[in-house]
């Protein structure tokens, strides 16, 4: 009751606002970073497979192999981080009620990302992309945006969910 009283008072006199900042910048969420990270993992798997045909490696090829593996690890971690931030900071009760699959989907993304990091397996990375695309689809739907699927215009040329934003 006291809250409602203060709220009414606030509508008249406009109290100052104190920010309880979370991660900066607040309220800026976009699953495209996670999608691009998965696409990068797929591309890295393609490059690793191409390199496999040149075995045994010379010194340059060994260095390239190490760089590709390191980048695959890095982008795997990025997928986890980007999805976790949206899941932890943006997803709340209303989204969970509308999309009850969200918790399981996010958990599956975490598990599949670990698998994609552990192996050089295109099938796993493609399966991960499908899940991250589904997550992106839910995210945009929760914001009232229609989505469409298009092939990304660069390697690895895989289907990606994009929001249909009005200009």
């Amino acid at each position, binding site marked *: 009751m006291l809250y409602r009283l203060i709220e009414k008072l606030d509508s008249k006199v406009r109290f*100052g606002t*104190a920010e*309880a900042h979370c991660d900066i910048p607040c309220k800026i969420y976009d699953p495209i970073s996670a999608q691009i990270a998965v696409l990068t993992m797929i591309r890295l798997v393609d490059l690793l497979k191409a390199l496999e045909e040149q075995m045994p490696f010379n010194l340059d090829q060994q260095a390239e192999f190490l760089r590709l593996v390191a980048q695959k690890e890095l982008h795997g971690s990025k997928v986890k981080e980007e999805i976790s931030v949206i899941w932890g900071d943006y997803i709340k009760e209303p989204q969970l009620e509308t999309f009850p699959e969200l918790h399981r989907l996010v958990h599956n993304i975490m598990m599949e990302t670990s698998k994609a990091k552990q192996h050089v397996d295109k099938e796993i990375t493609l399966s991960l992309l499908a899940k991250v695309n589904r997550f992106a689809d839910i995210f945009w739907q929760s914001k009232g945006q229609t989505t469409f699927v298009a092939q990304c215009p660069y390697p690895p040329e895989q289907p990606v969910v994009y929001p249909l934003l009005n200009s």
Partner: protein
Amino acid sequence: MTFLGFKIWKVTGHSMFPRIPDYSYVLVCSWLKHLRIKPEQTILVRHRQYGVIIKTVALIDGNGFIWCKGENLSSLAVEQLGPVSRGQVIGRVLSVFKK
């Protein structure tokens, strides 16, 4: 609207959740900042980068600077907020009015 150093502020953001949820109101006393500020007290600070923020005192360092923290994992880290001087403190939170 200030009355005898007491002022009500609206809180936006999640870093003080669950004790101070988003859109709560807090009663802040400005003259209490002149008394000893101790860890775990909740204060309002005029931060150079983030504007007026509400945080909990994490520690007071040897030079008298105040280091603040949020109350959940999504909050900015203590080192991101950096130290603030006593002059930047607006006041101490006395009461929280939640929805």
